């Protein structure tokens, strides 16, 4: 018997009882749809975190902040322990291998900024010019300060888009003079729009000034809020982070067993923390969806068993007119397979629609992962075959004489 006619026979068998076919399909359809939504939203969330991390471009860098424990965001200079210094930065650059560059940052939160009648508060970052090489902050208009401004402690500032908008509205901020804690600064650059950090910080509401200017003219402190250490290759980041840790413990004379007075973080680690939760959730939900698919498989099997016993006479007739056992087997396996495959395809379509609606209405990120979807459909097909075989074997094993009796 040709495979084409077997398929035709199976499809006719399914169409003969559309309601039953629909119910068989439903279990698989719901499972696959749920799986598709979960995978799509999970992938979307992961992609979103990755995108934000790439924006920060903190990959390949080791970040050191003062104080032990893990802190979120950057502590304001007046609030952080004064444990991290410019000397630390120089020593790290000089003594630790694979360190390409070290940038320093002093950050002060909630600083009053004024321009003519307008005022706002934002965070002011005093950074060495190389800071934006390690954590790129591209300038949309104007320019960023360089070693000259750093050396002369020039009163120049680069503004985030939102900060600029708060002070200047639609006017052109370039070459205007703003007052940071009443000290005049010339606006020389406006950053490109960058959005939020993975931790929720706003990259568009901040002001960058040279580190020397901040330390000497504004904050009057020598300790740092952050060190950004660029490592030669990404593979060396983790060992380098460990070395930085040991190096700083020795420099700070921390006795064995005592906690660090600084914390070292690498972007790859942060990524793990940030994606870990959503990934665990995705895996958990996927297992639930897979279980529902398994239940769908049992439904398929049960309905197929009912179908076989109801169609005993049909099976007997087919055997009488020359169907071999394997023709009957193929017919019923294909019926189950076709139902689950159709359920799989419809489930994917429904799931993609659901993910799309979720991303539009609720603002969830959604990304289509075709390999995962192909995997889901293949899984549905396997479920159909596995659960379809038992009823089909039962049908094929019927003795023609007994089957004809009904």
């Amino acid at each position, binding site marked *: 018997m040709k495979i084409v006619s077997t398929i035709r026979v199976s499809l006719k068998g399914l*169409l003969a009882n559309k309601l039953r076919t629909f119910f068989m399909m439903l279990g698989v359809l719901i499972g696959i749809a749920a799986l598709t939504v979960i995978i799509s939203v999970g992938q979307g969330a992961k992609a979103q975190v990755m995108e934000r991390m790439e924006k920060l471009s903190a990959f390949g860098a080791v970040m050191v902040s003062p104080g032990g424990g893990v802190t979120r965001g950057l502590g304001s200079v007046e609030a952080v322990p004064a444990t991290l210094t410019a000397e630390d930065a120089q020593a790290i650059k000089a003594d630790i291998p694979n360190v390409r560059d070290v940038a320093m940052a002093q950050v002060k939160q909630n600083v009053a900024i004024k321009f003519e009648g307008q005022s706002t508060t934002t965070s002011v970052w005093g950074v060495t010019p190389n800071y934006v090489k390690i954590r790129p902050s591209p300038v949309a208009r104007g320019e960023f300060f360089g070693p000259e401004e750093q050396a002369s402690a020039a009163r120049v500032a680069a503004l985030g888009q939102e900060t600029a908008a708060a002070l200047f509205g639609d006017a052109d901020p370039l070459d205007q003079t703003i007052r940071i804690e009443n000290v005049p600064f010339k606006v020389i650059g406006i950053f490109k729009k960058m959005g939020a950090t993975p931790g929720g910080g706003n990259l568009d509401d901040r002001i960058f000034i040279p580190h020397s200017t901040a330390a000497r003219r504004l904050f009057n402190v020598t300790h740092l809020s952050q060190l950004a250490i660029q490592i030669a290759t990404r593979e060396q980041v983790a060992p380098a982070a460990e070395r930085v840790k040991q190096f700083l413990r020795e420099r700070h004379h921390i006795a064995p067993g005592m906690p660090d007075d600084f914390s070292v973080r690498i972007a790859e680690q942060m990524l793990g923390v940030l994606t870990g939760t959503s990934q665990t959730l995705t895996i958990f939900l996927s297992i639930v969806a897979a279980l529902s698919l398994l239940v769908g498989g049992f439904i398929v099997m049960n309905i197929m068993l009912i179908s076989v016993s109801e169609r005993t006479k049909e099976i007997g*007739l*087919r*055997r*009488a*007119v*020359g169907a071999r056992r394997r*023709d009957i087997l193929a017919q019923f396996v294909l019926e189950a397979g076709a139902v689950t495959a159709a359920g799989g395809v419809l489930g994917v379509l429904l799931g993609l629609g659901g993910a799309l609606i979720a991303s539009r209405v609720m603002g969830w990120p959604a990304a289509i992962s075709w390999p995962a979807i192909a995997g889901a459909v293949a899984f549905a097909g396997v479920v159909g075959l596995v659960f379809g075989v038992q009823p089909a074997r039962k049908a094929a094993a019927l003795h023609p*004489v007994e089957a004809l009796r009904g």
Partner: protein
Amino acid sequence: MIRMEGIQKFYKVGDVEVPAVRGVSLHIRKGEFMALTGPSGCGKSTLMNLIGCLDVPSAGSYQLDGQEVAGLDDDALSAIRNRKIGFVFQSFNLLPRATALENVELPLIYRDEGGIRAKAAAALASVGLADRAHHKPTELSGGQQQRVAIARALVTDPAILLADEPTGNLDTKASEEVVALFHDLHRQGRTIVLVTHEPDIARHAERVIRLRDGRIVEDTSDAEEPAVAEAGGRP
């Protein structure tokens, strides 16, 4: 056409072997119209299943169209049923959701050959139902349904047409139509075995074999047929 020698068939019920056919020898010539009759439980259904290769004998030899059937496996029996046997059943056994034409096509889909639709249409026309090709069984009368079933049996051009109580579910008029159709087919040279317990139907056949308790007790054919005369004589 059919050559059965010392055919026996036992059914196992628990540990006991219950005989259904106890040594039947039977020759059926090509073109013969034969009726197999007897009271219920006489073994005629079992014998029909054996002739139709739906079941295999427990003992004895069965040659159909020159081929030994005893000892063949399931696939080979399926192939023989497909090529040599045309079944007609008491309850028609039509697929309810398929059209008359699709029902007639059924045996042909288990063959690897083309022109299925044309062959089925021709078979349907030969039983006078060309104009009912796209009707579902429920839209046909009982007599028409049985004629569709006969067309299905004929579509493979089988060596033998095997009809099991074909008029059992029909009223008198439809029964007469079906019997008339069998006469037509007989005139065209078909070999027909008609299983029935109704003497009125059996008498239409040119030869009647009566079974009782799994043995042939009467054969109306000429005594010139030596093989038939010795029927039932063996253990």
